[in-house]
């Protein structure tokens, strides 16, 4: 436990620059959106307190906006506002709006009618009544609304890192992807502290006598100051902008390798995998970190930059089979190897594109492909034993599982059972290791890094070459688990840097070294 705290502290010290800039971004995001929400919510609350007829519709709409899940809301914002701070601030603004409108309305409506009548009878105009009586008396309730909004915003602002708006979410989501507890805590603890501190400060403000204009002025100056934090760290730019996933940012076979091996210095923002490809297509980003066989590569007309210094370990796909299954089903090895050599990167990308973007079923995609390759044979409806195929929970694996199913049914007398949707690597591997399935398609890089986990030196030595990686995992799996790696299918689904086809042509950037040289040229 003590050691854990030490390392967390160590991590935070080591990353103190990043931590500071992320915290400032976080504060900035929270308060810019809060200021806008106050500027719009307060007058709106006053308006609906005056015209009660409008209160139902206005509060209704604000309430509906509040119920939109935050990730979805950020997603909606991208087509309109792109990526970066703008959509994040817009989304945070929408979340802050309801508590502010509702509390302003409730606060003003809740002022004792006798006091309002007295103010009117003293000869105050509507404006004087609002400023001198209604707002000051409603202020504790309004401030409570602003407090709620602030705490909500501090929380939701962590999601801003999904759309490249920065903030402490970069550590939190990076940490989750990398399974790095220290990184998660380095983001989560400051975020929680911010929420507590702001809540406390605002509660103090609530107790101060609000009609004293000095404190009000001081408070708004403070707000503006906090809001401006956001712009301090983002006051740098560059020729090209890269968008990397939080996971990629923290990996040696990711951004760290790009810096140390290539010396690549590029203006980088952190963004989620879900919106990254589209952002590149919309020219919000120039370079992104993706997977080399992702269907979106084709959908958005992106090309992969060649990894000429081999920092991305090879992720060649091959079926891995239990040894006793190979013995039991004598025809199996030969049948599974039929697919080998038929699918390269671009073919796999095309197939993924058809399931992910054209929404064709994996069965249909698999069958069409086998037919064009002349591999398809109608099912023999055999009954001499059932082969159990596993697949992880994404499109590419579904397609492969279906192809193998058709090949087995067409070429042998075995029956097939597909167990698809086995969460992640570890679930799939445990299933095969415990004789729940007979085989599934695995990637060499995954087998090496996620399952075998050799020391760093071995990894560096192996990953520069696809054959050495393959041979290593083949030998080790056989030795440790009695599982065989059959022939690689042919494609490599690894990390890759990507650019728009046209920009790549225009700049003549085809490899990562080209990219570095282009950036260094200034």
């Amino acid at each position: 436990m003590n050691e854990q705290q030490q390392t967390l502290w160590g991590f935070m010290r080591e990353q103190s620059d990043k931590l500071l800039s992320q915290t400032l971004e976080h504060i900035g995001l929270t308060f810019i959106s809060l200021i806008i929400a106050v500027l719009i919510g307060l007058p709106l609350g006053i308006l609906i307190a005056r015209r009660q007829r409008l209160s139902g519709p206005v509060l209704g709409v604000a309430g509906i906006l509040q119920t939109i899940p935050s990730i979805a809301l950020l997603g909606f914002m991208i087509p309109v506002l792109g990526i970066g701070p703008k959509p994040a601030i817009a989304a945070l603004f929408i979340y802050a709006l309801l508590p502010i409108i509702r509390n302003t309305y409730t606060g003003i409506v809740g002022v004792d009618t006798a006091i309002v009548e007295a103010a009117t009878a003293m000869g105050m105009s509507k404006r004087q009544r609002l400023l001198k009586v209604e707002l000051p008396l409603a202020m504790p309730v309004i401030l409570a609304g602003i407090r709620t909004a602030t705490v909500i915003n501090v929380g939701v602002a962590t999601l801003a890192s999904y759309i490249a708006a920065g903030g402490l979410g970069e550590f939190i989501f990076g940490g989750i992807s990398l399974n790095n507890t220290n990184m998660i805590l380095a983001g989560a603890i400051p975020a929680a502290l911010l929420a507590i501190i702001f809540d406390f400060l605002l509660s103090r403000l609530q107790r101060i006598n609000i009609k004293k204009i000095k404190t009000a002025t001081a408070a708004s100056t403070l707000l503006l100051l906090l809001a401006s934090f956001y712009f301090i760290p983002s006051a740098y730019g560059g020729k090209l902008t890269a968008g990397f996933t939080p996971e990629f940012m923290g990996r040696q076979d990711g951004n760290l390798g790009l810096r140390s091996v290539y010396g690549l210095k590029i203006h980088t923002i952190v963004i989620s995998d879900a919106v990254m490809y589209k952002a590149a297509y919309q020219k919000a980003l120039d370079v992104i970190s993706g997977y080399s066989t992702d269907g979106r590569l084709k959908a958005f007309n992106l090309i992969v930059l060649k990894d000429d210094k081999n920092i991305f370990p090879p992720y060649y796909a091959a079926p891995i089979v239990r040894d006793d299954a190979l013995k039991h089903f004598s025809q199996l090895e030969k049948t599974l190897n039929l697919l080998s050599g038929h699918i390269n990167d671009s073919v796999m990308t095309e197939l993924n594109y058809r399931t992910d973007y054209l929404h064709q079923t994996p069965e249909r995609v698999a069958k069409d492909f086998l037919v064009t390759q002349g591999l398809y044979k109608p099912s023999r409806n055999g009954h001499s034993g059932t082969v159990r195929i596993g697949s992880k929970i994404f499109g590419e694996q579904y397609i492969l599982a279906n192809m193998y199913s058709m090949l087995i049914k067409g070429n042998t007398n075995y029956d097939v059972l597909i167990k698809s949707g086995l969460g992640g690597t570890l679930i799939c591997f445990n299933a095969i290791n415990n004789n729940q399935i007979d085989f599934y398609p695995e990637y060499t890089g995954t087998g090496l890094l996620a399952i075998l986990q050799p020391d760093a030196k071995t990894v560096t030595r192996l990953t520069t070459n696809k054959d050495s990686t393959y041979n290593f995992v083949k030998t080790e799996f056989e030795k440790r688990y009695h599982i065989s790696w059959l022939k690689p299918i042919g494609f490599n689904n690894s990390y890759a840097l990507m650019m728009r086809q046209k920009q790549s042509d225009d700049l003549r950037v085809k490899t990562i070294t080209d990219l570095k040289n282009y950036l260094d040229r200034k």
Partner: protein
Amino acid sequence: MIKVSQLSKHFGAVKAVDDISFEVREGETLALLGTSGCGKTTTLKMLNRLIEPSAGVIEVNGQNILQQQPESLRRNIGYVLQNTGLFPHYTIEENIAVVPQLQGWGKTKTDTRACELMEKLHLSPDLLSAYPHQLSGGQQQRVGLARALAANPPILLMDEPFGALDNVTRTKIQAEFKQLDELTRKTIIMVTHDVQEAFDLADRICLMDQGRIMQLGTPADLLFKPTSTFVKEFLAGQQLQLEFKTTNVNNLWGLLPEAPALSAAFMPKGTSVWALMDILKHQPAISFQKNKQVKTINFEQLMSAFYQYRKGDNNHE
């Protein structure tokens, strides 16, 4: 001073105030008396346009108030609310200073005025920096009155001003109210459901029911010359006490025996029979003087004169 003609206020189908007309003379105190829902408060609030009339004309000093700016109209009409309506976030001093500030008075003038009012209303100057919730109900009501009087408006409207107070406090403040010189020059319209209060404080009473005026006249008019059975019945429960309060030595002068004074102290002749009865509990006789004529009476003589006066249907005025 104030002239109301054919004034009506309808809330949907309900006629809260139904075609009423009356006048209030300068310096007079008029009580709008009636049960809940009789339209008295609605009438009051139309006078400073807190409620806009459905029909009719209200003139103050010959000017139609419906054609004036409501804000400037209200700044020249004091207003006292039942529940004080003091601003809880303002100190007592700031509360009193509201209307003077709206009228653009200087700070010194406003401060002087606030101190003056505090003294007149028997409030300690220490309270100026206190907040309303720190004051007792009676003190709050006095501050409410001070706020209404601050800018010295010629007209004062009061909506059940003593309604929220306990009996002891109410009696005390009512007594102070009567003696307050600030108020003697003012035209006052006061809403009350309390018959005693109306008779104690008002020069004339406007008895209302279901949005209409049942009778408008002096307390004596209502008591001794009721125009309808409604008026008679409304006062029936407290008839005798009201008569004691309404009748004074002037009314009884002809019926009192002439006798030399016991001492040089003479009571004012406006003193009510009710007050005299109270005094005569403690001393044997009281003397009065009118045009060198001196009359001295004891309790029995007072009572006998009062009963003769009543029997003669108060034609001796």
